[in-house]
């Protein structure tokens, strides 16, 4: 709960959950620096750049693309998504709720003789049980996706990058975060320039 609240009111923007927590960064790094970003013309270049960066030993980075690229997630070293787990939990909860409600009402709380059918007409309870399962699972899927993606987050440092709006058009970006233990302000900037990307720039926090 405490973690939740702190997240809720945190002034500084943390990346999505699941990324490694902040480490002790190099002293000479300016506190307000969030990361260094570079722009790429297409997915292939971006992927290549990511591999390079990983080879270089960087861990905490983010790639921005106009459309999903399957390989990217593994390349960048993010684990598998935890959405499916949440969906499973939601579904099971829904099923239990759906049938439980009907059984409790029709057998325990207020048994009534309805057209001579038994109190526990489980056959008739199936459709509602099913619908509840779907409903809960679906909601779990969306909320899970939002939470795991750390949304809503209308403000994010990367939005200050002038060319970033092209990320939702046809440009590809890679950003190494300042929190990365290997991060050294000057070096990283220079390293980025070697990746073949254009418009390398610091991202202020």
């Amino acid at each position, binding site marked *: 709960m405490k973690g939740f609240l702190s997240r809720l009111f945190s002034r500084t923007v943390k990346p999505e959950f699941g990324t490694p927590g902040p480490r002790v960064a190099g002293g000479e790094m300016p506190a307000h620096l969030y990361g260094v970003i570079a722009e790429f013309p297409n997915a292939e270049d971006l992927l290549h750049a990511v591999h390079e960066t990983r080879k270089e030993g960087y861990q905490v980075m983010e790639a921005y693309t106009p459309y999903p690229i399957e390989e990217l997630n593994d390349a960048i070293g993010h684990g598998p998504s935890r959405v499916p787990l949440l969906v499973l939990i939601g579904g099971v909860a829904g099923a239990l709720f759906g049938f439980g409600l009907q059984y409790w009402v029709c057998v325990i709380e207020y048994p*009534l*003789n*309805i*057209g*001579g*059918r038994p109190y526990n007409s489980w056959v008739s309870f199936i459709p509602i049980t099913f619908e509840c399962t779907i409903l809960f699972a679906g909601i779990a899927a969306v909320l899970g996706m939002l939470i795991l993606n750390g949304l809503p987050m209308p403000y994010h440092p990367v939005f200050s990058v002038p060319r970033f709006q092209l990320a939702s058009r046809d440009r590809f970006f890679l950003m190494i975060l300042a929190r990365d233990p290997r991060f050294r302000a000057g070096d990283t900037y220079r390293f980025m320039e070697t990746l073949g990307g254009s418009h390398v720039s610091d991202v202020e926090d």
Partner: protein
Amino acid sequence: MKTLDGPNFWRSLEEYAETPEFSEMLGREFPRHASEWDGDEDGVSRRRFLELSGASLALAGLTACVKQPREGLVPYVKQPEDVVPGRPLFFATGFTLSGYATGILVESNTGRPTKVEGNPEHPASLGATDVFAQASILSIYDPDRSQTITKLGQIRTWPAFAEELQARVKTSRALFGDGFRVLTPTVTSPTLAAKLRELLGVLPKARWHQWEPAGRDAARAGARLAFGQPADVRYDFANADVVVSLDADPFTFGPGSLAYARAFARRRRDAATGGAAPPRYYAIESTPSASSTLADHRIPLKPSELHAAAAALLSAVSGAAVSGNAAPDARYPWVAACAKDLKAHAGRALVIPGEHAPAEVHALAHLLNEALSSFGVTVFATDPVESEPVDQLASLSALVADMKAGKVDTLLVLGGNPAFDAPSDLGFVEALQRVTFRARVGLYDDETSQYCQWHVNETHELEAWGDARAFDGTVTILQPLIEPLYGGKSALEVLAAAIGQPAAKGLDLVRAHWQKQHPDGFDAFFRKSLHDGFVAGSALPPKSLQAKGTVPAPPAVPRTGIPGDLEIVFRPDPGLFDGRFANNGWLQEVPKPLTKLTWDNAAHLSAGTAKGLGVKNEDFVRLKVGGATLDAPVWILPSQPDGVVTLHLGHGRTRAGRVGNGTGVNAYRLRAAAGLWTAAASAEKTAGRYEFATSQQHFNMEGRHLVRTATFEEYRRDPEFAHRVEEVPKISMYPGFKYDQHAWGLSVNLSSCTGCNACVVACQAENNIPTVGKDQVRRGREMHWIRIDRYYEGSPENPAAHNQPVMCMHCEQAPCELVCPVGATTHSEEGINEMTYNRCIGTRYCSNNCPYKVRRFNFLDYNKDKHLPVLTLLANPNVTVRQRGVMEKCNYCIQRVNRARMDAEKENRRVRDGEVLTACQQVCPTEALVFGDLNDKTSKVAKLKAEQLDYGMLVELNTRPRTTYLAKLTNPNKDL
């Protein structure tokens, strides 16, 4: 249901063969269009709608949260001992129709009469009543009843009238009452008669005239012809093995009909359970009657042939030469067989002349009964029941003549409505206007009152003291159930005023009269008579009279001379009678027997006649009788004799009230003195179409085994015949429920049901069922919880008719309950299919899924009229008045069941058999409906359901109905 090759049932000629007419008729139903937007039938005009539209949405949201204002609680100041708040009281009194009384018990809830029941002790009721008695409760509260005394439309006080009346009496005294006349309907009331005679004593030359539009002149004249003296006859069907009706309607019309129906039905019941031989009933009639649905043989005849047929029958029975030839009349092949049957049962036979048959036919009937030595066994002659048996037509004609001649200066009209129902050619209304002082005592400010300077608003029967005789002469003392709602005076009190006792109260007058008869121990006598509902031993003793004299000559049948002319037959309306009940919504809406028409009367024709005239249902025919013409819409009626058109009297009122004005056509316009019940008429098709509202749209049984019939012979041969038609699933997916307390059920005997509708109206009264009006009936939204389905079987010219009362079947595996999303209809542990109005949200799914379609829905706010304070008084306090948007249906009178169970439990016992009577059962003259506990093996209903005749409708659907039917048995003559 494997095969559907049942008997070929059908219900109207259109479908007998799916003719173009039929498809055309359905086509007609199609463009039927609603007009809610304009027009007021749903009570909201364009303007009102706009007013309301703003509020409405908010309203809809808030209905649930609005806090009800706190109700008041008003105790008595001094409470009468016998009153226990919350428990009804029953008072014995009488209901009179054209003079004759039926004993009734009226339920009174804290001073409000709310329901009429039959008086089981009373010979004319035996616990049953007819539709009219049931509906009379509504008339008390009718807001259209006249509520003040008026003179030329100006409101006057009672003293003012009394003074003027006495002044008239004083002045005419000088002339020994010359020119002073009183006009009444048929009078059987001893007190009223005495008062009239008292008046005539004061005014020797004054005269008392009587006029009853549906009167019994023919019967009186017939009796004179046969016995040479005035006499009445009454019948005992219990002893009758063979019954021949000469155009009679013994079980649904006339003073004794309830008792007759009961006796006849009992005979059939006994026969079915292996008792005595079943009675046989030949219905020879000029127009189909409700009784004839019980007939074993229906023989349609033109009214003009009735006499000849009767004569032929007589000659065949007695061998007496009739009108020249003793040879059996070739025109009536059935006579021989019928006569043989009669002779075979001489001494156990009975011939009944119809109330509307000509006098000569009555005489013939008496002679037949004489020849069959039925007198003293099945027929009893007595002195006339009426106080003053006169030829009322003559009486009225004389009055009119005198009025025309200016010999009448004072006319007191006590009840009746002659301006509307007098023979059209007498010119009653014109004559009336020549009378200087005209006073009318009546329930309504109606057609007659409009021509009288004085109108005195009459008290309703249930508001006033009085007395009357039943068909057998038994006297009933009528006591009021409630202070006159609109003030008013009874005819008795008006007469008293005329002879100088303006302050006399009805009670005192009645007491005074009976005190004279029973001077000693009067109080005890009077209290007992009131309590019992009749004066013990006041029935008229049978007299041994000899029906002698030669066969009377046939009555002259006037002919129009036009080729292809018709004979017209007038009948009192099954709902409105002679028109007096026109403003009674219940009687307007109750579907008429046989035709199922509501809110209308029609010119009934046989298919052949209709074809001849080139008319279809709902076309107009122009009927001409003498000089008078009338355009009437056509309704084709099977087993109507060819060449006969039947019109029901009583419709077409102009001053009946908001309900009764302008329904149907006024048949009295064609009814001349010469042809009160039948006349020669000509008919031709005229332009225009009419729209009838029938409670049933489609009439073909499609060969489904809904009504199951057999003859007694077949039944004896194959007692299981009723179960040979479908497969009843014995298995169920579900364990089902055990009903180990009570298990309520209902048995309906199709052999007894005459389709008289008493149950329909009784249910309406008991369960606060609203009327919906003609337009809504047309849309198929009538609300009756019981309907009486009617099917025909056999040839379209003269089929057998079957009645089948259908109400909720209380299925143990009810399809309706399963589909209700909010559980508003559930099953009680006593097996009653409960309808919880306050839980219903009105999806109508239950009705869709009900195979019997017995559920009724409040499509609109049909209880608007209940908002009239006076009509709230009518409501049964033990039954919820349903809101708009709520489903409702028969619930086996759950309020009665609960009351009985609670009473029983308070005494720590089970409910006894017969302790719970459903409203329909209680009113049924033929005991066709029996309700009770199926778990109590000794109960009547349990025994009935054990019979082989017992079958359930649509049981192949595995609904397991609690309401089942006893197959219909008939006893036709093999020789026919």
